[in-house]
């Protein structure tokens, strides 16, 4: 089990007029190898939740075990943060060093690794995110394109060799092609970093890549579902501020018009429409 969350509660500015419950008794488990989605409206507590996972927010109430490290006791920050990589929204805004290689090596350097190991990890991470190591390593991160910068930032986290990768809206602000590329990249990364947790507002993304999805609302966990289960709960989808993914939406419209279609992916939709079509013509 990668991450075990139990009864997690977090209150901002307790004891002041600005007191606000960001998380309220959240309990769930993320298994090893999950591609785990977290959805919910703005202010539903998603970011607060994932900030707990690598100790950026101190545990206030409840218990949390991440990669075997119990966060309610004293623990080694560096060990936790090297096991759990965190990619924030618009990660390209965190780049700072003179060259791409140095920037990517920042994490390993902080871990106190040897120069050779740092270089090796930087090289692997840059190649893992699909960039040309030789060509890019000595360039300034600020002269790259937006998509490249995001990849470099991602490489900077991957260079820590995490076992779990947490991403906050990794595709925000990208064009459709860029979004697709990043998601494909995540699938490739998943071979080396088996557990991926992702916040997203894009239902198509969540439904086609995640195997389990947690829905948050007002700091409470509304449940953890498979994509198919979630799309049968239309109210919950609407409450989370999401729209149905396109295949599910089309099949819903078809069902309303009397066709017997059930699909959560494009392939399934095409298959079921084709079979109805075939039966009609036979």
């Amino acid at each position: 089990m990668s991450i075990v969350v139990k009864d997690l509660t977090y209150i901002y500015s307790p004891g002041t007029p600005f007191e606000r419950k960001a998380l309220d008794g959240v309990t769930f488990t993320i298994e090893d190898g999950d591609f785990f989605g977290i959805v919910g409206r703005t202010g539903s507590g998603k970011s607060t939740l994932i900030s707990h996972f690598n100790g950026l927010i101190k545990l206030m109430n409840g218990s949390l075990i991440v990669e075997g490290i119990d966060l309610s006791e004293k623990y080694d920050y560096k060990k936790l943060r090297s096991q759990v990589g965190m990619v924030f929204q618009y990660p390209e805004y965190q780049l700072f060093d003179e060259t791409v290689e140095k920037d990517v090596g920042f994490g390993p350097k902080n871990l106190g690794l040897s120069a050779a190991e740092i270089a090796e990890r930087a090289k692997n991470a840059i190649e893992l995110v699909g960039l040309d190591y030789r060509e890019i390593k000595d360039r300034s991160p600020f002269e790259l394109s937006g998509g490249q910068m995001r990849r470099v930032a991602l490489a900077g986290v991957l260079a820590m060799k995490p076992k779990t990768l947490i991403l906050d809206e990794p595709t925000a602000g990208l064009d459709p092609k860029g979004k697709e590329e990043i998601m494909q990249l995540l699938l490739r990364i998943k071979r080396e970093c088996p557990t991926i947790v992702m916040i997203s507002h894009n239902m198509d993304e969540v439904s086609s890549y995640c195997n389990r999805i947690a829905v948050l609302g007002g700091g409470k966990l509304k449940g953890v579902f498979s994509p198919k289960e979630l799309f049968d709960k239309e109210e919950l989808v609407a409450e989370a501020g999401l729209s149905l993914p396109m295949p599910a939406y089309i099949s819903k419209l078809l069902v309303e018009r009397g066709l017997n279609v059930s699909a959560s992916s494009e392939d399934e939709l095409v298959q079921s429409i084709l079979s109805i079509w075939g039966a009609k013509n036979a």
Partner: protein
Amino acid sequence: MRDVSFGQYYPSKSVVHRMDARIKIIISLCYIVLLILVPTIDRFLDKGRLGDYIVSVGATFIVIILFLLMVTLISKVPPLKVLKSVKSVIFLVIFTAVILVLFYGGTSNHIYFHKGIINISLEGIINSIAMAIRLFLLVMGPSLLTLTTTPVELTDGIESLLKPLKLIKVPVHEIALIMSIALRLIPNLIEEADKIRSAQKARCADFDSGNIFKRAKAMLPILVPLLISSFRRADELAYAMDSRCYRGAKGRTRMKIMRLGIRDLFGMLFFAAMFFVALMFIYDFFGVSTALANLAYSLI
């Protein structure tokens, strides 16, 4: 980094909040002048006794503190917020106080310890306590101004007060605009710095250990992205203003026109009364301080 109370407005509808920003700025300036007028001990001991100094300065401080307390209560700002504003200068004050105690070089009749340039005396200790109180009051007063006045009102007030400088071609409006943009962006910068800090922390960056040079160097991964995003933001803001036809002060009207009211008059009178009483203790008008000191001596 989130505890920057300076420049943080505390919303309320009190009389103090509704007062004209210009009046509040003038009062704050006079308040600062008043604190500067409080004498240090050297200036005093040439002609007076140590007890006279304690009584005169002590009484002045009590008057000023009472004034601050009353304004705070009227303004409905939690007193703790005002007190917290000294947090940012506390190290400066402690440092100054220690230096003043160790190296006091003025007249002193009660020496406790003397070796080389180190000279600890009763006068030095009293002097440094007075200085510490003075510095704390110096921060608390203006922070009360920013707690009860929105940044927009504040810059509008400054712009209005600086208007006469337009005659000698000082770009008053532009200066006020720069100030208001700077003030407006402080919370954004803090938020942004927090975000970048978290991101670098997630890459095991260490900001809290090592000596001062190491720590300064550790700030680089925050400062560089912060600087870059400030430039980006400035660019975007310039475009946004341009596209809404901003052309500077010429022909620009205001939605809120500042008008002096009866409450401003009362506020000024209230401050003037405090100001006069404090001056009375400082300069010994009508022999008040001397009389008080004599009374204190006779009691002891």
